[in-house]
Structures are given as structure tokens and as C-alpha cells.
């Protein structure tokens, strides 16, 4: 596969190769090797049409640790704000010799359009397209889950993962459901009915409106942010009521299996979907997710650009 657009495109073997590669790269970093050589002479462009701190910095750190040259392109303050189309921006980047474009865009399907347009010859990594997918987030979540639940090897067969919150607008949830199922995990989705997308019954996950029920027997819970910026309707009465019914507190954490972990893709709204007590508790792996994100993105870039053609 030349591009990484959706976790639905990954086979179990592809996913495990990415996670294993991330493991080795994390180890090299842990051994104090600051910079690895495989992407010397390659150019990675971070093309971000939406605000993002951690994803952009994470991709930048990953590319630089592999010795790639990195060009950051934020739409704000660029020719895009003068009305340049994605096509013309892409043609410009192609003319500058980009080997890979990491694209964050507000429209679902933007990465797919860029990859299949013929505008560019390089690889496209989807770093979040609208409410569609965010595959590297799902991969770093799977990496984190595998580290804690499966000692860092194999798949996630038999693990139960509960994903809670704004499933409707969440590209993280979509990417996670595909990948977790590919890796053999059971997935439970919890949200108020208004925050579940149409056709959710075809996702192959259990759907529940009751958080407490869905936490019993779970090995991990993933809390999603309430995405105010994508909410143009009233999906629930008040933030307070949402947090009462769907917010994670310590009592709810205690309903999960022994050794269960708490995850959040960030940025968090403390006091809305998660209490500060839980976010800072020993079960929380939220900060570790950020660290793992760099290793997983290094693995994706290495497997795409390290050889003469992409490996996954």
C-alpha cells in the first residue's frame, strides 16, 4: 500500500508489522540513538488545513528522527488563505519534490482525493480528514493497548475496549473500530443516541447508551472529546448532564477489569468527558499515548519511504 488513508485498508499482518516496527524504533530511541538514518534525502510535507498541535509535532518529530527533511505547511497564513485550492497546493508541493504528504483536512475524504488525484507522485498519510478517519491515532492506540494488555506482542484477540463519547464526529473512533476489530478485539461504543452516526449497526461493534454497563468487563476505555467546533446542533441538553451520564470518574474506572487502562486521544476537556482525578491517575496512559504516537508515526514513515516502494 502506497498511502495510509484508512485503517480499514490494513490487514492483520500489516497492522502487526507496523506495531512491531514501532516497537523496534521505540527501543532504538530508548537506547539513546537520537537520529536514525533511513529517510535521509526524503522530504516529508506536513500539510495541515486544521489546527493541530500534537499530531503535527508528532509527525514532525517522527520524520526528523528518521533523518527526513520536513516542511511544515499550515493553511492559515499561507496561499490557501488567498484562495488556493488543494489541487494547486498539491501541485506546488509536488514541484518541490515531496516524497510524502501528511494531510490534515476538515473535509472527509480529502486524503483520498489527494492520493488518487494524480496531482502528486508521493505517498499520502491521512492525519485526520473531517469526521472520517485518523489512522495513525488508531495505530498508536493499538500500540499502547498491546503494550499494556499483551506485553507488546501479537494482536489484541479477546480484549474488550470501550469507546465513549462523540462517536458521530469522531474520526478517532472510526479508525479505532476498524483496527481493533482487525486485531481481534471486542469493541463497545457508548454515546447518547444523538451522538451515534447513522448505520452504526454495520460497524460490528456493540452499541450501548449506558456507560456503567459498558465498562463492566472492559480492559480499556477510550474517552473522546466533545467536539464543540463540529457541533452545529443541540446534541444533549447541557454539558453538566452529559458529564453526569457519559463522563469518566474513578467510580466508573473501578467497574472495569483489574489492570484496565484509561485512554484519551487529546486534547482533553477536564471535567467534561473525564475528571482530573482519573486523567492523572496511575491507570491513565494518556501521556504515554503521545510518546507512542511518535514511534508509530516513525514506523509508518519508515515502511512507506524507507525502501524503493512501500511495504504496507
Amino acid at each position, binding site marked *: 500500500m502506497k498511502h495510509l488513508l484508512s485503517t480499514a485498508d490494513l490487514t492483520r499482518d500489516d497492522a502487526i508489522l507496523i506495531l*512491531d516496527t514501532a516497537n523496534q524504533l521505540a527501543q532504538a530511541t530508548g537506547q539513546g540513538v537520537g537520529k536514525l538514518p533511513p529517510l535521509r534525502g526524503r522530504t516529508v510535507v506536513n500539510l495541515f488545513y486544521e489546527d493541530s498541535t500534537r499530531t503535527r509535532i508528532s509527525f514532525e518529530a517522527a520524520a526528523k528522527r528518521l533523518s527526513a527533511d520536513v516542511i511544515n505547511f499550515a493553511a492559515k497564513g499561507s496561499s490557501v488563505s488567498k484562495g488556493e485550492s488543494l489541487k494547486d497546493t498539491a501541485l506546488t508541493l509536488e514541484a518541490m519534490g515531496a516524497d510524502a504528504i501528511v494531510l490534515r483536512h476538515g473535509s472527509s475524504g480529502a486524503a483520498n482525493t489527494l492520493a488518487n488525484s494524480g496531482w502528486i507522485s508521493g505517498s499520502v498519510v491521512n492525519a485526520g480528514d473531517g469526521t472520517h478517519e485518523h489512522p495513525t491515532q488508531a495505530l498508536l492506540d493499538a500500540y499502547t493497548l498491546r503494550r499494556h494488555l499483551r506485553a507488546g506482542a501479537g494482536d489484541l484477540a479477546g480484549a474488550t475496549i470501550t469507546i465513549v463519547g462523540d462517536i458521530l464526529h469522531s474520526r478517532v473512533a472510526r479508525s479505532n473500530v476498524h483496527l481493533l476489530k482487525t486485531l481481534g478485539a471486542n469493541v463497545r461504543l457508548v454515546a447518547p443516541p444523538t451522538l451515534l452516526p447513522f448505520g452504526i449497526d454495520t460497524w460490528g461493534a456493540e452499541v450501548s447508551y449506558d456507560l456503567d454497563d459498558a465498562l463492566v468487563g472492559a480492559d480499556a476505555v477510550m474517552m473522546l472529546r466533545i467536539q464543540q467546533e463540529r457541533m452545529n446542533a443541540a446534541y444533549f441538553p447541557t454539558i453538566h448532564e452529559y458529564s453526569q451520564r457519559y463522563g469518566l470518574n474513578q467510580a466508573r474506572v473501578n467497574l472495569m477489569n483489574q489492570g484496565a487502562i484509561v485512554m484519551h486521544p487529546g486534547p482533553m476537556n477536564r471535567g467534561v468527558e473525564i475528571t482530573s482525578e482519573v486523567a492523572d491517575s496511575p491507570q491513565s496512559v494518556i501521556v504515554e499515548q503521545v510518546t507512542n504516537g511518535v514511534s508509530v508515526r516513525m514506523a509508518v514513515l519508515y515502511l512507506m519511504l*524507507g*525502501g524503493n516502494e512501500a511495504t504496507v
Partner: protein
Amino acid sequence: MTHTQGRVVLDSADMSRALTRLAHEIIERTQGAQNVTLMGIPTRGVALANRLAQRISEIQGSPVQVGAIDVTMYRDDLRMQPARALLPTVIPEDGIEGRLVILVDDVLYSGRTIRAALDALSEHGRPQAVQLAVLVDRGHRELPIRADYVGKNLPTAKTESVQVQLREHDEIDQIVIRQAS
């Protein structure tokens, strides 16, 4: 013995003797192997390094540091094929700074793997010296690299392939030469 089956040039007993001799040579040349760290090159170099470490420590009565160094990302042919899976690098507790590092691999051929290993090694510190031990030297060097310890010199044609099989990976200890198809 057809070409597809290959020709066994070293059997299990031969290999065992060769490894024992290598262990003795290492001890002799390094005055007791006190400062030695063996670094195997995955995959089969790691198994060989472990076997050598075991033999040396049995003879000397003290343990030998042993690790693994993956060279994949340092290869000069990385861009000539799809990106390869990475293998574990294991740096022993004491590191390699100031140690006498002996790289261990199964077959020495072009020398390109060893060049990559020297680059990979330098990321982890500055050894006092680096030496090379191989089970088989089959010739055809493409770089100015030679082995310090050789289990078996095996003159081969470039059209042949040399395959070292080890119990740890292949259920049998032997070295087979095949005519490359």
C-alpha cells in the same frame, strides 16, 4: 545430492568444533576475553554470538557480555527493495563504550553488512576496538573488510548461495551450498 537439495559442507559436529575453536581463539587473542562484548547481527549472528558467549564463559568460568545489533536501517541497499522489517538491537548492560566489541555473523560475503554494522555500532558509543568473527567466509568481498576469526573458509562461486542453518531457527545445525536458481 542434487542442486536443489544443496550440498552439506559442514554438519552439526563440524559446526560445534568450529565454534569451540573460535571461542578458544577469541580467548587467546583477547587475553582472557575480560573486556569483550559479543554483538550478534540478526538473525543467525545473534544465535551464534550466544553460543560463543556460552563456550567462552564455560572455558573462562566467568560470563561474557552479549548483545545484538540490527543493521537494517544502515544498509546501503535499503532503497533497492521495499523497506524491511526491523529486528531487535540489544545493548548489554555495560554498553559498548570502551569495550572490545566482537561482531558475530554467520556468513561473510560482500562485507556490506559489516560496514552497516560498524555504522550502527557507532550510534551506541565508541568501543576500544571492533573485531569480526564469522562462521563462514565465502569470499567475494566488495569492501576493504576482513574477519579476525573465521570458522570455515569456503571458496564459492558467486552463482552459489551459502545457507547456515542453526537449531535455534532451522531445527538443525548445518551449512548448505546451493546453486542459486
